[in-house]
């Protein structure tokens, strides 16, 4: 009933956290920091959009980090070694990533296996494939990369909205339209509520499931492109563990991992909170990077416990979820 409350709480936590950082560090509350926050987490945001669709539908996609790694290596080799025009390489890799996601969705649907294990296989496959392509970090030198990286909208106060930031914001906007204002979006929520009822209502479960995972794969590929632009290189180990960051952002954003409940706006705030933790640690200078993991874990726990307390009605459903997970 109160499905908005988690998002509101998440937003308040972010604003309080940002205000706290602003009081602590004099130069924190500036458009420059915000711009960098968005730029540094653009790839995570793009990935988290796809993950939100998957999780609302009651599934999970563990392969996204590996797909990101594969994409960066593929782009580096295609553009750097084979001389394929960057735009063509982008299209190729997006098609590949989308088809990969669709294949996983088809396996989940037609083999009736838990998404967890199918996408685990996908993660092994994608990571293994990127290792096979190259185990070295390959720089990408293409004029298009320089043009795109040089492009930025300037904000008052010295902040910059870079190309990849704008791309991420566009993906979020597109995702919000798709999730909240289209028939496909309603199908996604319906699937997360109950697969069996969804099928009985005559909703095309198979087609929707495949499309959801295709979307997640496609966006993981796009996040790989963003990461490739961000680092101007391709490395088979990039994106290790990013699937966890994306899942954490989605959960912190108020989406229930049991499916059926969640918003993309919440995910956006979740990504910002994870970015804020990183930025705080950078600003502080004495804290070590591992505190980010601990704080993220603590936040994850706090939000999950909070959701449990809020959803008194979810009692019986959580039992069923626990048995099926």
């Amino acid at each position, binding site marked *: 009933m109160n499905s908005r409350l988690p998002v509101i709480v998440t937003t308040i936590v972010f604003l309080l956290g940002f205000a706290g950082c602003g009081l602590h560090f004099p130069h924190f509350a500036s458009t420059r920091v915000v711009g960098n926050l968005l730029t540094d987490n653009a790839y995570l945001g793009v990935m988290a959009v796809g993950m939100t669709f998957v999780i609302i539908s009651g599934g999970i996609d563990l392969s996204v980090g590996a797909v990101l790694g594969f994409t960066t290596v593929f782009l580096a080799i295609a553009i750097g070694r084979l001389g394929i025009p960057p735009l063509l390489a982008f299209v190729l890799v997006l098609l590949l990533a989308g088809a990969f996601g669709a294949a996983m969705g088809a*396996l989940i649907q037609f083999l009736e296996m838990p998404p967890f294990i199918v996408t685990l296989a996908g993660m*092994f496959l994608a990571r293994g494939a990127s290792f096979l392509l190259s185990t070295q970090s390959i720089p990408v030198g293409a004029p298009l990369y320089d043009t795109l990286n040089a492009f930025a909208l300037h904000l008052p106060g010295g902040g910059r909205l870079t190309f990849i930031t704008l791309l991420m914001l566009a993906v979020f906007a597109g995702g919000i339209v798709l999730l909240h204002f289209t028939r496909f979006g309603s199908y996604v929520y319906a699937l997360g509520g109950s697969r069996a009822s969804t099928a009985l209502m005559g909703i095309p479960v198979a087609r929707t499931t495949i499309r959801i995972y295709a979307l997640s794969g496609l966006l993981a590929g796009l996040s790989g492109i963003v990461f490739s632009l961000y680092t101007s290189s391709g490395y088979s180990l990039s994106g290790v563990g990013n699937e966890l960051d994306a899942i954490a952002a989605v959960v912190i954003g108020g989406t229930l991992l049991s499916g059926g409940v969640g918003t993309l706006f919440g995910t956006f705030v979740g990504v910002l909170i994870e970015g804020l933790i990183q930025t705080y640690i950078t600003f502080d200078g004495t804290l*070590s990077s591992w505190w980010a993991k601990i704080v993220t874990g603590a936040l994850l726990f706090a939000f999950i416990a909070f959701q449990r307390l809020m959803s008194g009605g979810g009692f019986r459903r959580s039992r069923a979820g626990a*048995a099926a997970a």
Partner: protein
Amino acid sequence: MSAAVDAPPRRAAWRVPRKALPQLAALLAILLLDRAVSPQFFHVGLSGGRLFGSLIDVLNHGAPVAMLSLGMVLVIATGGIDLSVGAVMAISGALAASLADSHPLPVTLGAALAVGLVCGVWNGLLVAWLRIQPIVATLILMVAGRGVAQLITEGRIRTFSSHGLAWFGGGSVLGVPAAVVVTAAATVLTLALVRGTALGLMVEATGGNARASRLAGIDTRAMTVAVYAWSGLCAAVAGILAAADILGADANNAGLYLELDAILAVVIGGTSLLGGRFSIGLAVVGALIIQAMNTGILLSGLPAEFNLVVKALVVLAVLLAQSPRLKALGLRRPGARATGATP
């Protein structure tokens, strides 16, 4: 074959359950393949009072994953999953390596095991009392645990020189590497605890239908906490073995992705991710299958990167073999599960 559901298995003096045949055949096939790749594969020698050879290597390097799968199989049997075991390995290894040179061995081991137990109980409480989905509950520790491990090692690779702790990596009992002995002992202990008593039945009941089990008088909450605690303890032992093996603790990489290997081992062992029936022995066989593949790829001279691709294909094959849909088509006989509902 469908009669197997009703008829209890015959109690022969020795019994190789018929359902174990695919796994054992797979292990044998992989070992023979390894033999084809490396002619010396089955050669076992004795050097300095310690057995050596590729076969021993498979056992020795397979020990941590086998250890993890001992806990994981019980967790999965209750319908849960424990994603945190890799991080728990890192924590216990980091603690053991930090304490080894300044404290006596029993204190070091006790502390490392205790921290694993605490982690396991924490997971269990989240799942059983807060009723958080297992995959989410253990995700928390998976994310935060590695940070805690880095806190303990202060971000460095913590090395140690204590002979006591090093024995678990380099020592041997009657020529058999210590890690193998520890894992074998833990397997026997787990089997005795779970199959020697009614505990195993209760775990299966909890996974099969928690509600019905509660009505039948089984304390499903206690069972759930117990299996996660056991999983944490097993992960702690695996962490000690891994730290002893390299004489140091690497908080970043110790046990990284091993939770996935452990889950894979359990699934290869025929235990359904939906809970219910489980086999401890076959989970260990599953761990050996994974390690035999890894060793084989290394011996064959193929780049080690092939590991992941081969693993992906194995997962795919197991998925096909266990798919309810294919079973429904009659291509394969179901174990004894009747699940109408899809997850």
